[in-house]
């Protein structure tokens, strides 16, 4: 069950009001003081979202700047501004350090849309000289504008939130370099140690790309970290974004030139087993193993993407020639899928039965398709068959499916069908599927065993007679005295 979040305001209009106090006029100090008081009160109610906390610190610095007499020390003011900006940048960047290794703050800030000179200012304020007051005032102004555009406006008007998605850099150059390196080492084994560090750096680049994709996924859903206490939800959310990133990676891998060799000549398949060409395996095994070791779901995602590609509906406009080419491409993909499933099972520690899941997916899509595009999915059918061979359960399921797909479904109801359905219904009802929920004892456990008039001065117990009705926590319902 998805829980709501605790927010410090009763309705979003309060946030709107605070926003107007802050931003309506540049030089309105009273509005800013009101906002500071209000946000401080919110701070005492519950934990604030990070953007509001940074707003509060910057506002306090601005108010202090405008109210203080000119003779007192400016260093305290500069420190106040600097701390506010440092905490703003840190708080935005830290939740997006999603990889195993730290990425540079400037790279994450660039994805977020923070101006780079703000990050430099943050570095200077932390490690070098404290910046000047003018620069800090300008930085505060820019930060407030950034917060307005990136937090306040989307929070108040969720539908008009602009899409802040920086496009991911393409992965093809990295994959090309990887292929190049591996080809050289495959041909000449002695070069292996020579190129080992280069291969390692290529793999780390792929990993970095995946991390960037995850950050982009986070930003696209605008959901940096969930604050609910449901731990299951956390892990599911993380997996969803990582899965998205891995899916993008698999899409790049599945392009022609990736897992499947570009030239048709190279797509010669070994006749004895249902595996991809030997050379392809040599090429890609190490990268795939590396990725699988880092992301335990990688093979599952890859197999899923391949199956989806195979099952995709063909566009009617494609010409016949392309269809011819595609068939060997699809066959190669099917063999890769088989290889992936075998590799998954070789690594014995997974609970998730990938073979079964892929088979189910294929059966679901193929079994019911009666129209002409069925024959286009030859590769998918072949894959299904090869997955099922050797396992009696799946074999029998497949044979049932084949029988079914040959039969024409009955087009009219016959009276005996009703009886069959009745029998099934009775069988379902009689089986003890639903455990009896132990209802709470009906003896009404009264909360107040003492008379209500017993309470002392100032405390008065309300009940139905005083006109009180159940209402949400935080809502005041007036009563008759």
């Amino acid at each position, binding site marked *: 069950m998805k829980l*709501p979040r*605790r*927010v410090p*305001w*009763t309705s979003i209009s309060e946030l709107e009001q605070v926003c107007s106090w802050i931003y309506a006029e540049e030089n309105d100090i009273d509005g800013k003081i009101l906002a500071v008081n209000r946000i*401080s*009160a919110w701070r*005492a*109610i*519950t934990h604030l*979202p*990070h*953007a509001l*906390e940074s707003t509060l610190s910057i506002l306090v610095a601005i108010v202090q700047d405008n109210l203080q007499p000119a003779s007192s020390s400016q260093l305290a003011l500069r420190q106040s501004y600097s701390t506010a900006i440092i905490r703003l940048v840190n708080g*935005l960047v*830290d939740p997006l*350090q999603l990889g195993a*290794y*730290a990425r540079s703050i400037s790279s994450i800030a660039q994805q977020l849309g923070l101006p780079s000179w703000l990050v430099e200012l943050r570095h200077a304020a932390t490690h070098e000289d404290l910046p000047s007051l003018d620069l800090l005032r300008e930085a505060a102004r820019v930060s407030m504008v950034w917060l307005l555009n*990136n*937090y306040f406006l*989307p*929070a108040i008007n969720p539908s008009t939130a602009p899409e802040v998605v920086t496009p991911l850099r393409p992965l093809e150059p990295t994959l090309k370099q990887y292929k190049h390196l591996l080809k050289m*080492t495959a041909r000449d084994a002695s070069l292996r*140690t020579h190129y080992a*560090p280069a291969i390692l750096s290529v*793999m780390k680049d792929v990993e970095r790309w995946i991390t960037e994709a995850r950050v982009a996924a986070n*930003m696209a*859903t*605008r959901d940096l*970290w969930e604050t*609910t*206490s449901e*731990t299951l939800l956390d*892990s599911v959310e993380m*997996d969803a974004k990582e899965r998205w990133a891995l899916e993008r990676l698999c899409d790049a891998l599945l392009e022609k030139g990736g897992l499947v060799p570009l030239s048709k000549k190279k797509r010669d398949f070994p006749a004895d087993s249902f595996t991809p060409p030997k050379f392809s*395996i040599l090429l890609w095994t*190490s990268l795939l*193993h*590396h990725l699988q*070791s*880092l992301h335990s779901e990688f093979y599952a995602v890859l197999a899923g993407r391949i199956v989806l590609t195979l099952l995709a509906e063909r566009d009617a406009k494609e010409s016949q020639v392309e269809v011819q080419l595609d068939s060997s491409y699809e066959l190669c993909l099917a063999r890769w899928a088989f290889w992936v499933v075998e590799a998954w099972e*070789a*690594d*014995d*520690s997974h609970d998730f039965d990938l073979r079964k899941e892929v088979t189910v997916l294929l059966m679901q899509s193929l079994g019911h398709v009666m129209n002409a595009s069925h024959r286009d999915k030859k590769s998918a059918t072949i894959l299904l068959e090869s997955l099922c061979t050797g396992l009696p359960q799946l074999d029998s399921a497949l044979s049932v499916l084949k029988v079914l797909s040959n039969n024409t479904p009955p087009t009219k109801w016959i009276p005996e069908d009703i009886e069959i359905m009745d029998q099934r219904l009775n069988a379902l009802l009689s089986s003890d599927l639903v455990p009896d929920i*132990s209802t*709470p*004892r009906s003896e009404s*456990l009264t909360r107040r065993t*003492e008379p209500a008039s017993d309470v*002392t001065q*100032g*405390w*008065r117990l*309300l009940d139905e007679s*005083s006109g009180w009705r159940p*209402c949400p*926590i*935080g809502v005041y319902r007036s009563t008759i005295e």
Partner: protein
Amino acid sequence: MLSAIAARKAAQAALRDATVPMDSQPGPTTSAPVLEAPTPKKPTSKRKSSTQTSKPPKRKKEKPKAPPRYFDEPDSFQDQDDVIVIDSDSDEVDEQEDFREQPPMKRRWSPSLPLNDSSDEGDMDADLDVSFSVLPTTAVPKVPTTTEVLSTFHPSPNQNTFFLDVAEVSALQLESNAPGTLIALHSEETICLLGTYTFTVLQGSINHSGVLLSPSRRCHRVFAPRSSPLPLIEGQDSARAIQNIRNLPQSIHPLIARPITLVLLQELHSGVEGLGRICRTFDGVFAPSRWQRSTVSDELQLSGVHLVCPCQESKSLLTVPQIQSQTRDIQPFELSPSWSRAIASSTTADLTQASVHLIKGPKNSGKSSFARTLVNNLLKKYHTVAYLDCDLGQSEFTPGGMVSLNLVSRPIFGPPFTHPTLPHAAHYIGAATPRATPALYLAAIQALLETYRLDIQVPADLPEEEDDEEEERIVDAIPLVINTMGWTKGLGADLTRSIQEMAAPSDVYELDATYAPPPPTHAAPGAPAHRQHLLQPIPPSVLATAYTAADYRALNMLSYFHAVFPPSAPSTSSSLSLFQDSQARTWQTTLPLRAVPPYAVSTAQALDAVILVGAGSEDVVPEEIGRVLNGAIVGLVECIPGTLDVGPKREQGPPYTQAAAPPPPTSSGCVGVALVRAVSPQETELHVITPLPHHLLTRSRVLVKGELELPVWGMLDFREVGEEQVPYLQWGKSEGLGGQRRRVRRNLMRKGQM
């Protein structure tokens, strides 16, 4: 220093065959006596993936045998001495032994060890609390070497199980006259029950969750949910019996005066199961989960009690994988030998002096369990035991946020949320960790220790005589058990050291064998010597991953608000008598909090002061106090009149002064916690919900608000499904960057850390 990549490969290799733990990284917890099984250990794969050659992957065409589990060791495992094979049912041992090896990891394994910043302990959101070590063998619980069989008792009606009706039970003149089931346990036979029940020992003696109980007419209430280790009842040899044992029906008479233990089990209806409907995390926690439904039996014919055992017919289901998972989320309570040694030595020591026992250790090491066991064992020798709870987050008797001194006179069986009790004395700190207010925290503990020494250690009034067949218990001295926080590093270590110095304990129990004690420079010469006991912490269990500390805190709070405390008669003396009953027996769980009629409190008449405590609270101006109090959890504090500096009186509204100091613990005390569910528009009236009995409300005229919040579960209406618009709650994701609370990762590595 292993590289991270190699570490991951090693971890994956280790996950595949979680055998003997790797000694290269001493984890913070060591387990119970380790297996000496000569299992083949897969060598740590030191090869880096970069040098992985392009040889084709090994095709391990392993036909999936049913089921091919990595921990399916050869019989050398069963030949160990620690594995108790009872009768010839070695199958039961096999099937229950080890799903605890692989806890249901709801979270993906993260590759690096979170650097334990000391303030980790005070983190309110506990999602980062679970520490996955680099080599996760320390996170994977070891196969326990004590008995894995949960119940060896097989109920067979009229042989060892008898059903008594009301007339038969009342003939025994016990505390309760409800019908029940009488079971006969042979020596060393165990029974494991899930649910809520009361038991009475009629003959013989039993060992129930670490404490030996002898026959008496007293009914002990037991709450055994799945979210805590389940207590085992084990029969012991003893020849005693209660007075009216001959009043049992004739069919049972052959069992009397034999070395057989007779225990009467009765149903317990308290409404506590309703808490599972309110807080969905713990839904159905008193009933078997769906995995176990096929194996638990209802042969005891008590509603709310489930016998956890493999039934006779389950032998044929051995090949079905589901049966093997029947212990996936059940953890039996096992008393480690170091615990029993320590308890035995402290309870047999010189008893005429009231002793002070201090328990410390890191979080999740079993401090609370040990404290409960110690209290139960001390209650066999003493009539009353005092319990000083210094843990603000997971308190034993209070909803959290306060340090409290409780008096216990009956044994406690069950997790903290099942026995909310009104404290004898308490001070409200307002947060789940003393990180923000360490001085106030220490002052409060100091005040409570003073209270103990002056009023309780040698009690002024003695309890009423209870007529039972137990041995004479000491009534003129009350020992003290102190439970500290699980925060063992940094500021927490300092605070615990200060507490130890203030308390001058006679026994110190430390729950971490590898924890290095601080250098003894702090020990002042001439300090009274104390006995030091080093204890084995409990091994990590599946429960630690399924229920986090934040979940328990939420449940404690909700249990407090739904509890029905017994209304005590206003005593003639101004102070509470020491021995009145103040534990909640039942819970009101039919109405959510929003439907409970509140008290209307007039701020002018009933309140002297409203004080805010915590970081940033001094910035709240008086105009905003109404907004802050709306929906807030406050502590009800009574102050000795004249000791609190109240600022200038406001003309209307709650009497709040900005940046007021919290009430000093030496002249104030907290009686309980309340929820301000609404504030009137003119701020003249507050609607307050609190479970406290009336006489406590009259005395509390100060409200203190800290950082505690009502859990979101309490704000929802569990009777309705759907997302309604409620103030202070927002459904769905947050919009905008920076729209979430700040979260910090403490396990981030840099590029140079190869």
